[in-house]
Each structure stands twice: as C-alpha cells, then as structure tokens.
C-alpha cells in the first residue's frame, strides 16, 4: 500500500477548501447552537442561499464585492423571514422549521420554474461565476507544488481559494473567540440555558436570538460561497446531508468552543478520506466488487462516527464538566 500517497491525500484534506467551508458553516452553527441553543437544522439552506446569491449576481455581471454583499443580504433576509415567526417557538419546533425552510430553498431552487435564474436541478456551471474571484488572485496562472501538495494557483480548487478560505476561517474564529468571552456571548449562553430567566433579568431575548441567527447565517452564507468556488452550484449538494455533516462536525469538535468546529471539520474530512482510500487500497477487488468497497467504506465511516461520539461525547475540545450537568 502506498502510504505516502494516502497520507498526503489525508493531509491535503486538512486544509482543503471544502474543509474550510464546512469549518465556517460549523462556526456559524456554533453561534446558533453552541452559544444560543438554537436548534438550526437548516444551515445548508443558508449556505445554498449564499451560493446562489453570489453566483447569480456574478453571472448578472456584478463585481465580486457586490456579489458577496448580495449573498450576505440573502442570508440576512432568510434569517429574518425564518426568525421573525419562529424564534418564539420552543427549540424542537425551531429545528423542524429550519430544516423545512432549508428544504424549501433547495426545492424551489431546483424546480423548473426558476430555470433561468438557478439553472434548476443542473444548477449553475462553475466557470460561469468563478472568474471574478480568480481574477483577484495575485498568484497568477499555473500550479505550484509545496512539498507533496500540488494545486493550481488560482483556478477552481486552488491555493488562492485555500488562502482566502482559511483566512476567513481564522477571522471567524477570532470573531467567535471575542464574542464568546464578551457580555454579548454571555447573554446568548444564558438564553441557551433558560430563556425565561434571562428575560426576567431584562434582556430582550428575541432580539439576541435574532442577532445570533443572522450572524451565524451570514457566516453560513460565506461558507456557501467558499463551498461552491471549487465546484458548481448544485441545489442537491446543499441539502439535508450537508446540514447533518455540519452538525456532526460541530459536535465532533465540541460545541461552544472556539476551535471545535475547525478541528471537527479537519478530523471529519481527513478520516473520511483515510477510510475511503485505505479501503480502496487494501480490499482486493476479488473479495468485494468496487461498489461494495465504497459502501463498506461508508459503513466504517458511520461506525467510526458513532464510536467517536460514544467514547468522547464532549467532542474533541468540549468541556466534560458541562456534560455532567443534566439539562434534561
């Protein structure tokens, strides 16, 4: 088995653009859930809206800053539409409403009624909106190899995208770190524990929840942009499985921690890559057919996920003490 190749691949996942995108999305979700206790099961909806907002406005000829602004605006509006009626509901209901809202975005996006705008189920081709971002790259054309890692400089799945993506992740981490230790974050944590108590202390719970929903959603929409820059805008790629993975990543890393989402994303994608490539390498095709190897790989992924949580329930970085407090 070619361990060097596999380990390089796995290491490459640690800083791949997808990993960064998921880390960002999980950071957004961390603001929702980790800090505020909002059960947002529609993070993929925010991401998809961000992706659509960015891609559609770029295709319409907007400059990149405006396109990003449109993406952010989309997620803000979505958060408001979602939040105004639902933030008063009990937590579990919010979960189902957000998951439903995200599905609505996806279903409407892929419906043939909007083919001209969203490209319906085939979505929007990558080369139709990547140019403005790639044009900003100072790295020029061609590709560069750094150690074992070789990627194109600017186009698609590039060094440039990695740099920007991880810079954004770093920025978001700083933001969360600042907020987590600030009185603002404290109010959110209070809301997570008991809304009524916080209300009795004179804080406008509704407004704080809305701020959290919008902020996390905006980070989610940026994540959506990063996510589609190395690929295409595909409504089906940003559906329920994506939300589930974002949740998995957040809890794997540890909710309500600064680096939890980042570590979670890195570990998740690296482990996935490791399991899949090793499976392809070690299982001879005489034992299992090609497709069975992939399926078996997924079985192992599922079991690993369960074992990770079972043996480290507080997440990689979580506080074990917090777990001991029975909130139910």
């Amino acid at each position: 088995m070619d361990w060097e190749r596999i380990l390089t691949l796995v290491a490459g996942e640690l800083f791949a653009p997808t990993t960064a995108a998921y880390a960002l999305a999980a950071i957004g979700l961390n603001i929702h859930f980790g800090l505020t206790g909002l059960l947002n099961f529609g993070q993929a909806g925010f991401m998809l809206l961000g992706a659509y907002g960015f891609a559609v406005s770029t295709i319409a000829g907007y400059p990149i800053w405006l396109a990003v602004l449109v993406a952010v605006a989309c997620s803000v509006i979505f958060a408001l539409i979602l939040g105004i009626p639902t933030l008063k509901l009990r937590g579990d209901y919010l979960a189902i409403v957000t998951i439903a809202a995200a599905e609505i975005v996806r279903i409407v996006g892929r419906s043939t009624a909007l083919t001209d705008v969203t490209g319906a189920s085939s979505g929007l081709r990558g080369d139709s909106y990547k140019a403005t971002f790639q044009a900003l790259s100072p790295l020029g054309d061609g590709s560069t190899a750094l150690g074992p890692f070789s990627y194109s400089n600017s186009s698609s799945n590039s060094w440039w995208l990695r740099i920007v993506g991880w810079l954004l992740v770093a920025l978001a981490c700083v933001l969360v770190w600042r907020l987590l230790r600030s009185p603002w974050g404290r109010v959110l944590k209070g809301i997570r524990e008991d809304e009524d108590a916080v209300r009795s202390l004179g804080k406008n719970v509704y407004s704080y929840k809305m701020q959290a929903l919008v902020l996390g959603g905006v980070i989610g929409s940026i994540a959506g942009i990063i996510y589609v820059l190395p690929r295409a805008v595909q409504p089906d790629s940003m559906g329920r499985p994506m939300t589930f993975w974002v949740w998995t990543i957040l809890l794997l890393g540890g909710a309500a921690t600064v680096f939890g989402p980042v570590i979670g994303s890195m570990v998740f994608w690296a482990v996935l890559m490791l399991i899949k490539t090793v499976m392809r390498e070690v299982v001879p095709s005489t034992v299992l057919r090609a497709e069975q190897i992939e399926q078996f790989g997924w079985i192992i992924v599922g079991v690993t996920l369960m074992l990770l949580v079972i043996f480290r329930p507080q997440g990689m970085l979580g506080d074990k003490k917090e777990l001991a407090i029975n909130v139910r």
Partner: protein
Amino acid sequence: MTGRRSQVRRATSMDRSPLTRATVLAALAAMLGLVLATVGPGGTAAAQTVACAPDSGTACITGTLRTSAGQPAVGVALEVAGPGGEQQVTSGPDGRWSLPVTEAGQYTVTLDEATLPAGETLRDPANNPRTVTVSLGGVAAALFPLGTPTGPAAPSGGATGDGDAPPPATGGEPGLDNTVPGTASGGGVNWDRVAQQASAGLVFGTLLALASVGLSLIFGTTGLSNFAHGEQVSLGGILAYVFTQLVGLPLLVSGAIAVALAAASGYLQDAAIWGPLRKRRVGMTQQLIVTIGLAVTLQYVFQFFFGAGSLRIVRSNPETVALGPILITQQSLISLGIAAAALGGVSYFLVATRVGRATRAVSDNPALAAASGIGVDGIVRMVWTIGAGLAGLGGVLMGLYLNATAWNMGSTLLLLMFAAVTLGGLGTAFGALAGSIVIGLVVELSNLVIPSDMRYAGALVILILVLLFRPQGILGRAERVG
C-alpha cells in the same frame, strides 16, 4: 416556452368546452378501445411489419389517421413533397400511412381533404399542409387530427353526429372510462380527482403515522431525536422483501416476521447502544450524532447487501376496488385497517394501561419515575422495541403502498415523519397521527395547486404556518412559566 404552454392550454380548454365534450369523450373511448384491441397478442407485430423501416439510406415519414370517433380513417390520400421528389400515399386499414424517402431535408405533407371519410374534417385546417424535417435513418411523423375545427372559421363544419360515422366504441371494450378516475371530465382539476388524491393522502398519512409514531414515542420517553428512525422503516420493508422474494414465504408470514425482527432490532439497539449511553449520561445532542452515524451505517449496510435499486416486496399488481368515485387498492384498504388497529392499540396502551402511563412518566422525569418504582430502563427498552416494531410495520405497509421499497425509503420519508410528529405536538402519539394525516393530505393534494416538483415545499410551508398559529403543535400544550 410560454408560447407553447399557452398553446397546450388552448387545447385543453377546448376539450373542456361543453360543445365538444361528448364528442371528445366518445372519441377517446373508442380510441382506447381500439388500442386495447390492436395490442392484443400479436397485434403489435402485425402493425409493425407494414411500416416502413428506416436504415442508413432511408427515412420514413409516417402518421396515423383517426376519425373523430377514434376509428381508423381508411383510404385518405396524402401527398409528400420534398428533396426526394413527390410521392403519394393512402392510409391503410389501420389508418396508418408511411412513406420511405431517401433524401434528408424538409418535406411538406398535404392531406387531400376530399378523401376524408364522410362527415370528417380537419380539426385544425390551418395545419394542412404541414412540414416535417427528415434525417436519414430516422422516422418523422405528421399528424392530422380530425374533428370539429378549433378556429371560428368552420363552426358547424362536419359535426360528428351525422349518422354516417360508425357508432362510437364498437370495439366493445369500455376503454378506461370505468377504471380511470377522473376520465369523466376533460382533465385538469375536478372533484373526482380531488377525492382520489384525498383518499391517497389519507392512506399515505396513516401509514406515515405508523412509521412515525415510534419516533414520537422515543423522543417522548428519552428526549432523543432519532435520525436513524428512517432506517428502521427501511428495515421493515427490506425484511419483508427478503422473506417474500428471497425466501419465498407468503406475504402475511413474511410481514409478521419482518415486524418481529424489526422490533427485535429496536430491543438490541437499546441494549447495545442507547442504554449504555444513557447510563453514561451522554447528552442528547451527542446521542443525536450517534443516530446520524447509525443511519449512515444502516443505509450502507442495506446497500451493501441488497443493492441500490428498488425492491418489490410482491410481484403482483395491486387489485383495486371502487368506492364511489374513488379507486383504491385492496392492499391499501387492508393496510389502512392494520394501521388503524396498530395505532389504536398504541393509543390505548399509552392512555389506559399502567405501563403506558409509566411510559409517559418516564418521559416527564426519569429520575422520579425510578423513585416511583418504575423500571426506567425496562420501559425505555420496551419503547424502543415497540417503536422499532411499528416502524417496521410502517415500512412493510409503506413498501406495499409505494409498490417497492429501497435502502433509502425511510430516509426520504424521515423529514416528513419529523414534520408530522412536530406538527402534532412532539412526544404525543395522537399528535403524530393527526400531524401525519395533515401532512399526507397536503403532500397528496398540493399538486392540485402548485407545481408538483414543489409539493414537499408546500407541505413544509403548511407546517410552518400551523406552528405559527399553534406554537405547541396541534395537540401539544403550552407550558406554565414560573
């Protein structure tokens, strides 16, 4: 696009106009009768042999002519002109005509109206002659529908009832009229169709309730949102498939075995995974991730062993019975009965039995339940067993209702199941039933008003709206503060 769309609309509105409805109906009946007649064993082959066969050097221009009553229009003369020269052709005894040509290009087809059977006119005279594009090796068709003209030009032209036309539907077969719901009127929305879809919604909703009541029970007693519940549903369907198709047992037996095994899987799951996690006081969100992991595992285990295709639990086509305007399969009726009995049993169990009440007590406060002498672990295990068993039963019946099951049947239903139990009020079994039926009706009826590829969205919008007006769900109760 829009242009073409409006054209279609015009055609349908024509169908619906009272003047022509009877005619069109008769025509359709006859036509379908004819179809049935011609495609009897051997019929197709006979029809095929007459037709021109295209090859790399030839192409075919072809068409079929039917009178407004649906009978073949025999002996109608047509002229085809194009790059390959001019040719004449007349329609054969089956109303069919075809011509080989050896040059590609545009051809005009002109129908000689004088040769039409007595009393027949072109429905759309403006379309004679029509142009077709022919490429070698291909087939190009040109249709000339006969009947009352649509345009205002010939209002009375050759109305059908002149006596010369053969009586409609001589083929004897009643066509599809009696069996296809909604045939009575000219398409689009009508009450029969609403009734038909509502009955489907009711059946679907009830089966959904069966599938999701376990979800609600498990959430109620343990606080866990089980994202692997969909896989329990798939498991039921797949096991039924295994025992009917692979083992060859009769459906009833294999259904029973499937439900029993599904229930056992719930028991084992709780013993192996959830019980220990509870003991270690692992948080609910963490457990939720474990359920996602389990869902992934199970989905791919199913795929690994049974492939990714749809699996038919039984091979036969469902028999139908007509209840007034509604056509419903016997299977659905039986399923409805089984589901109603199972749901009634669960409700009775929860409300009226000691253990059922204990279940609710555990869901309220496990520590206090233990202090009351209730064996909490036993109750939870029982809930898992019952929940998984019901999901399995739901899976079997759903697999029969949907005509097939698959590795992902449950996961595609999961969102609807969650929506249903939430809508009804989380953790209440009746709520799950009420919510499921609402969801079922919305899902099945929404294509009457919105594009059908958006109908899930419709169901979900309803969900959000209901929650806005009743934040605690249909049957949920508001909590006291302070």
